[in-house]
């Protein structure tokens, strides 16, 4: 019973976050609503017994990506940022498509009979580790390469265009 309550609480929080983002115009608010959503979903993972995924979610997403986004917000937000609102026609069309999609998905979900076999035991991190390096070794290596590429790409893209002289002394400081 408690689990259901918690589930609806967290689900409610996540959805509320989504809706709040839709409605709000200040980008900072949106960023923080995203963070609440991420934490809510993390909580849901805990609820589902996937502790490792939950923690990774919070660590990687909230700790990393969210902060990155907040950085993006701060770098680009100007005091007098104009309120960017979507056009009216777009909103109406979007609402329509959104409802249709939602309706379709929920209908499909409700109609199919999921094979409800036994609840998997809350597995330990070790098994995930083993499967990560066993069954999923291929993807694991690929992801590592991808991350490297992404890092290089991002670094290259975000390099300072204007050759800032940088503080004269910055060159060649050495830390023992």
């Amino acid at each position: 019973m408690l689990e259901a309550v918690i589930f609806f609480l967290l689900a409610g929080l996540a959805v509320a976050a989504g809706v709040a983002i839709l409605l709000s115009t200040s980008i900072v608010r949106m960023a923080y609503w995203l963070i609440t959503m991420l934490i809510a979903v993390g909580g849901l993972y805990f609820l589902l017994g996937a502790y490792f995924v939950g923690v990774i979610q919070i660590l990687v997403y909230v700790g990393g990506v969210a902060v990155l986004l907040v950085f993006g917000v701060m770098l680009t937000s100007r005091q007098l940022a104009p309120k960017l609102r979507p056009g009216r026609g777009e909103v109406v069309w979007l609402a329509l498509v959104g409802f249709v999609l939602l309706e379709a998905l929920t209908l499909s979900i409700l109609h199919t009979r999921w094979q409800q076999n036994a609840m998997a035991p809350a597995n330990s991190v070790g098994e995930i580790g083993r499967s990560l390096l066993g069954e999923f070794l291929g993807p694991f290596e690929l992801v590592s390469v991808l991350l490297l590429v992404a890092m290089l790409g991002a670094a290259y893209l975000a390099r300072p265009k204007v050759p800032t002289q940088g503080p004269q002394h910055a060159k060649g400081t050495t830390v023992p």
Partner: protein
Amino acid sequence: MKEIELQYRHPPDLLDDGEIPSDIRTEELVLNMGPQHPSTHGVLRVVLQTDGELVLGATPYMGYLHRCAEKIAEKVTYRQFTPYTDRLDYLAAMNNNLGFALAVEKLGGIEVPPRADYLRVIFAELNRIASHLMATGSYGLDMGAFTPLVYCFREREWIMDLFEAACGARLTYSYITIGGVREDVPEGWGDKCREFLDYFEPKIAEYNDLLSFNHIFINRTGNVGICPPELAVAYGLTGPCLRGSGLAWDLRKATPYCRYHELDFDIPVGHGENGAVGDCWDRYFVRVQEMVQSVRIIRQALDKLADGPVQAKVPRVVKLPAGEVYYEVENPRGQLGFHLVSDGGTSPYRLKIRGPSFCNLSVLPVLAPNCLLADIAALLGSIDVVMGEVDR
């Protein structure tokens, strides 16, 4: 001299659909290192144009501590003006008084008894040590190390006690008056002074361990705010700032006054051990070495302290002959100059005071660009500005 022009690019108008220049800096922020700021040593306001952490331009604003000292000088008799000189560079009041007194004496042709001279030297150097202690301590504070300040103040307290014993005041002494010294030091003062010097000598090494040679400190100050000698001369830097850039120019040696020529001391100069010549570390370290030299001077002066009158015969209301004089004194922060024009009346016709900090501060806009925000604090601390002198 590389012309360092202020690269300031206006942010493009949002709605302007025109051609967008290719290299747009990120958002530029204008910061107000306002009058109330922990690292501005008094009411100095610096407007910074920053691009993220990088500072593009700094323009100091002054005038927050302006008390019209020079105008008042015209209304006030010479003697009455002495207390005002204390408040010019409130950290080195003795030297200010000395400067003013020497200027008047030079114009008035007043002869000062030798004991007064030596007393003047002793008190000036003690005041220099106190002011340098203040500078190094607060510089540490700027760098984020809180402990050195406390240690420096510990010794400064001792000096303050000595001053208090001598002239009853801890900060604004107005002890050195026209014609000599207000009153003689109590006896045993010299022994107390020697006791202090013996105690103080090893402490300087302690500061060096604590702050000067601290690796983080060196990182924060080395190669920051490098002021080449030519730039220093061009902007009229004087005092530790000038000597930090490697120029050994000290009025006490260059144009010795009140018996400095008889004393033996040497002028510390920045050699750029930890970074370039003329960087913040050099200016800081020059001050530390000057403290050592001051101790030597005081010791020699104490030894030469002969008995005799401390006050020359000067009428209560000093009347100077019409004429003008410009007399400079080596203040802990640089050359403090008094340009006295008298029309023969009891009060000067016009008194122009050259504050060393004023000139030293002028180099900030030149050194600031391309520094980081934290370096500004370091730079400002190394220049060691006292607003009293700047605003007068």
